[in-house]
């Protein structure tokens, strides 16, 4: 890799040993992928994937402390993934003890570290930092040092920013030195599609199921999706963005997709069209039968497969303001049809603190509360990742949550049916 004089001086230790190690990490990371240079990070804010003060993550806290002690922090502020704890989310006494004492006992300590390192706001904890209310929304063409798979794929695909699927720790290190290696999704070549996905369904495909199918098929490649604009339209309005948020999260967690193009909809596809498709690209056709095959392939790992769900999580990734409003209406209509006043399965909707604050200013907030749904800023994934929650029958329409935990996946419509009318 060819470095500028300034970059080489940092690597040589002229600005301290710790910063030199940070630069060495970024350079070696880039060299592994054939990067020939570093390019400046140009976004206003960064985003970190690590938000959880999990006791066992001590090696990460130790590393962060080395940075803090050496005064090696970023000039760029950042948001971080959601908090793992929220007392409003149902938990029994044992769970409370396990969560607060055994698992996340380092939460306050780690949040203190994050604030020292440059957290943009004490409540800037969400996986959906690009939502308008959170205000960490990069512009088209900006170069990022983000991690969080669902945020990276959204920033690349829907916003047209440029970011590799960076790992936690690399995210902050790129931001500290102010440069990231130029490879992969930062390059025009790396943004070309090596798969063409043809959507031939008879109804609008479920976002999280479609994303899962594509992720599992193309893995880390870039898909160019044709036929989805017939269902989403050709404008990136709130509904389309919410759909693409959930779709992208499923492609990134069920596979390793960092960028997708939707014909006639996402910015680069609108601008460059099929010239984004690489020569020799493979084709994947998705029809109703293929989506059903994917749905049927998910293992159910509850001990009792017929157990009555004890909890429902919606919002992994965090729900948008538009989703909170539209789900409020759907819940009301479905409850009324069922003759119920409140949800019959304890249900938690999760969203960013800033979105919740905005939602609470609307008339929908009281209406959602009346349905019995709990609104939380928690990370459902972190709530689920322990033996106590693991043994709970939890349902969700998040394919990301399904992938990482024992939560059982249902479509949005099935979830609505179950939480408003009961399990048949």
């Amino acid at each position, binding site marked *: 890799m060819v470095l500028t004089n300034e970059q080489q001086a940092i690597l040589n230790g002229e600005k301290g040993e710790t910063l030199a*190690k940070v630069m*060495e*990490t970024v350079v*070696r*990371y880039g060299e*592994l*992928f054939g990067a020939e240079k570093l390019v400046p990070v140009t976004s206003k804010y960064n985003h970190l*994937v*690590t938000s959880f003060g*999990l006791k*066992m*993550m*001590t*090696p*990460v806290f130790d*590393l962060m402390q*080395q940075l803090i002690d050496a005064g090696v922090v970023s000039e760029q502020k950042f948001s971080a993934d959601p908090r793992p704890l929220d007392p409003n989310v149902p938990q029994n006494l044992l769970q409370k003890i396990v969560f607060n004492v055994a*698992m996340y006992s380092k939460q306050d300590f780690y949040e203190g570290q994050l604030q020292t390192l440059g957290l943009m706001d004490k409540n800037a904890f969400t996986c959906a930092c690009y939502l308008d209310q959170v205000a960490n929304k990069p512009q088209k063409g900006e170069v990022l040092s983000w*991690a*969080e*798979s669902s945020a*990276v794929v959204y920033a690349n695909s829907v916003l047209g920013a440029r970011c*590799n*699927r*960076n*790992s*936690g*720790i*690399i*995210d902050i290190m790129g931001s500290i030195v102010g440069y990231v290696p130029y490879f*992969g999704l930062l390059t025009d070549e790396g943004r070309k599609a090596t798969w063409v996905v043809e959507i031939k369904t008879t109804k609008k495909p479920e976002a999280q199921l479609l994303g899962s199918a594509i992720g599992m098929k193309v*893995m*880390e490649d870039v898909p160019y999706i044709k036929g989805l604009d017939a269902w989403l339209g050709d404008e990136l309005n709130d509904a389309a963005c919410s759909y693409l948020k959930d779709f992208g999260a499923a492609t*990134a*967690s069920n*596979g*390793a997709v960092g960028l997708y193009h939707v014909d006639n909809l996402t910015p680069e596809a609108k601008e460059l069209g099929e010239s984004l498709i690489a020569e020799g690209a493979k084709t994947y056709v998705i029809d109703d039968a293929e989506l059903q095959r994917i749905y049927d392939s998910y*293992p159910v*790992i509850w001990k009792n497969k017929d157990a009555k769900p004890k909890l429902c999580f919606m919002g992994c990734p965090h729900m948008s303001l538009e989703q909170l409003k539209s789900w409020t209406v759907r819940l009301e209509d479905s409850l009324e049809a069922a003759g119920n006043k409140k949800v019959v399965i304890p249900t938690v909707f999760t969203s960013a603190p800033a979105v919740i604050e905005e939602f609470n200013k609307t008339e929908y907030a009281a209406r959602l509360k009346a349905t019995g749904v709990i609104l939380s800023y928690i990370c459902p994934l972190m709530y689920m*990742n*322990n*033996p106590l929650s693991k043994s709970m029958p939890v349902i969700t329409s998040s394919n990301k949550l399904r*992938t*990482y935990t*024992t939560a059982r996946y249902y479509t949005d419509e099935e979830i609505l049916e179950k939480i408003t009318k009961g399990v048949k």
Partner: protein
Amino acid sequence: MKVFKGRIVAPGNVTAEAVVSHAGLNTLASFQGALQFGDKKATCGDQNNPDLYNKQMAGKALCLPQTIGSTTGGLVLYCACAMGRQPAAMLFSMPIDSLAGAGVVIADVWLNDEKAKMVVVDSLGEEFLNYVKDGMSLTVKEDGTVEVN
């Protein structure tokens, strides 16, 4: 014995028993037991990976195409190395992905501990992954050669 040659990502000599994942390794889902619940064997917890689910990964020669899933992947690998719960070797049939690559580099730069060592070779080819089976003895050499016995 069959010999495969790949690219050295983290050099070293090691002999270990193979465990094989034909699908992408979801690092977070696979290692969460090792990190959160003190499982020193690093038993794979990924329900979606029938090849590896419930099998020990620590100390093994983990053969895989690439890693997938959460971008915590690199720091999960870093933590596994720091805690001495890492595979003895990670052997990729494809070029290493950005998450695993980050984890390997971070561990190498920031951990100065022999117990944290993990040999990594990538680009071993599809034939490697088709040939190698669970329980086979693999010898990895400093030049990126993998001998399968």
